[in-house]
């Protein structure tokens, strides 16, 4: 089935988030908080695009995307914290002083420079994804085993980050930042700026993913999902393709995490616990896997719903999410986008009948 790409969706999407929302804020109708909240959702959507590439298109259920997301966040957080510490004249971040550490741990050193921070925020997740992927894909681990092992990896990292000895703030995480490149993070215009940057990055990520999935490379990914063994008899090196897309997905998660941090002001290991990793996959499942628009819409919608639900009925969010998930799995496995497409088709059968048989 070839669905024509309707530019209307893109125009609508950009009109709402790049014009309407900022305009609403400028005119005082929308609070800067709302802007910031949506800015954070964009970061989730960027990570969701990565999940769609690795899971929706390639069929590899990776449960460690939340970990890559956190790596990006932690990297930026370390930089911001060091900047703040320097500004206040202290030698070490507070939590280190409390832990009776005297010199800055070696792995914190490069985060004093913003350039190094950016580089490491991308390099570290990419390298970990490469190493983990190399081992897992080489040993032909797939399906549910892949999900279990990546989940275990996330769990191990979560436990590691929880420990005070890791020197990353333990359970409390890293928080209390003041400035980014000299800009005051609490100022409204900086928040709007971060919102716009996140939105731009989301659009860029979408465009990049679109190019990937519509290239022959993307078709190989789908072929791997459909029949991994068959594609290797056609001389495609499955491991190379899986590794490449796993690294790309990790990078997208990391970019999301990097942009997320200055907008939320805190990162704790809670962002990568089991619940968080499962939730990220659910965004894509609910939005529609194997569909880039679905991933974006899923991430935005679920998080929006989350914020609505937690204020209305605080305790029932997980039940609602679980219920939605079950419904999706049972009745419309292509998620929200699949549902929308089938409704659209039902309405247009008859009028489009002639164009449905390509010659």
């Amino acid at each position, binding site marked *: 089935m070839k669905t024509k790409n309707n530019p209307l969706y893109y125009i609508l999407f950009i009109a709402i988030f790049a014009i309407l929302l900022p305009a609403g804020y400028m005119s005082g109708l929308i609070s800067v908080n709302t802007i910031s909240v949506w800015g954070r959702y964009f970061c989730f959507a960027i990570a969701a695009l990565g999940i769609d590439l690795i899971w929706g298109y390639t069929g590899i259920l990776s449960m460690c995307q939340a970990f890559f997301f956190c790596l990006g966040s932690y990297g930026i957080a370390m930089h911001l914290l060091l900047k703040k510490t320097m500004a206040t004249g202290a030698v070490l971040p507070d939590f280190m002083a409390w832990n009776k550490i005297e010199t800055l741990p070696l792995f914190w050193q490069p985060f004093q420079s913003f350039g190094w921070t950016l580089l490491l925020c991308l390099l570290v997740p990419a390298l970990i994804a490469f190493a983990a992927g190399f081992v897992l894909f080489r040993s032909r681990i797939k399906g549910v085993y892949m999900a279990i092992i990546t989940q275990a990896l996330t769990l191990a990292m979560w436990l590691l980050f929880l420990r005070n000895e890791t020197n990353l703030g333990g359970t409390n995480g890293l928080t209390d930042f003041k400035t980014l490149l000299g800009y005051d993070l609490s100022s409204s215009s900086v928040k709007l700026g971060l919102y716009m940057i996140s939105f731009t990055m989301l659009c860029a990520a979408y465009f990049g993913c679109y190019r990937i999935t519509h290239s022959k490379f993307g078709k190989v990914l789908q072929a791997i999902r459909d029949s991994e063994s068959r594609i290797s008899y*056609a001389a495609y090196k499955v491991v190379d393709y899986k590794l490449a897309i796993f690294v790309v997905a990790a990078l997208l998660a990391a970019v999301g995490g990097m942009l997320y941090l200055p907008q939320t002001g805190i990162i704790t290991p809670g962002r990568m616990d089991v619940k968080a990793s499962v939730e990220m996959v659910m965004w894509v499942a609910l939005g529609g896997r194997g569909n880039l628009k679905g991933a974006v819409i899923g991430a935005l919608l679920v998080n929006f719903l989350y914020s609505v639900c937690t204020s209305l009925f605080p305790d029932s969010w997980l039940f609602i999410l679980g219920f939605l998930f079950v419904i999706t799995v049972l009745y419309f496995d292509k998620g929200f986008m699949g549902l929308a497409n089938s409704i659209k088709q039902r309405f247009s059968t008859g009028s489009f009948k002639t164009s449905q048989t390509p010659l």
Partner: protein
Amino acid sequence: MLLNVNNLSVSFGGVHALNLDHFSLRDKELRVIIGPNGAGKSTFLDIICGKTKADKGEILFNGKAVTGKTEVAIAEMGIGRKFQKPSVFPGLTVHDNLLLAAKMKKDIFSSLFFKPTAALADRIHAVATKLSLTTVMYKMAGDLSHGQKQWLEIAIVVLQDPTLMLIDEPAAGMSDEETEKTGALLLELSKAHSIIVIEHDMKFVEQIARELVTVLVRGKRLMEGTFAEVKNDQRVIDCYLGRTNAQLETL
């Protein structure tokens, strides 16, 4: 000889699935392998294309060892496989199935920056025409009929342009007319490729077996000869009798 196989054996859980003393194939030869169910025919092709690892034995293709190589390396050597159970990519269109199969560089960067060329489009179109797939080019491969899937998988192998084609039960699930067409196609392909075909349908075997037919029984090579020789061999008749394939009798 293009393909030389010696003392090839494999067993699954103690059961000898294949125990082949010798097998060889000339360049541009079309060889048919027949044998009752479970004779090890598919297993033989599985070993050649790297799907199953042999316990022992050697396979030389163009003088180079095949055993121990990966599926990709074997495909790159010029061996293409059509499986018994049609295996195509159900979530891709017929056209994309063919595009992925077509012979070209297949590393990640070549795929990422791949630009379709007119020559390639022509080639895909030509193969699709030969296998009556032009009318379903933009249909999902998963929605095709069983016979069409068989043809699509043959088309995939043809587009890979291998030196040696391993074709497992191409006519299964096809009408008489389609079977005949498939036979004609295989004969035509054998002018430019070496082909091993596994088949149960004796009428089909008679159509395509211009040279040797190999009979496998319980993993062993029972005999090798022309179709007429095989058909009239008492041992062959004996092992087909009492089985589902009483077809030899009727011929």
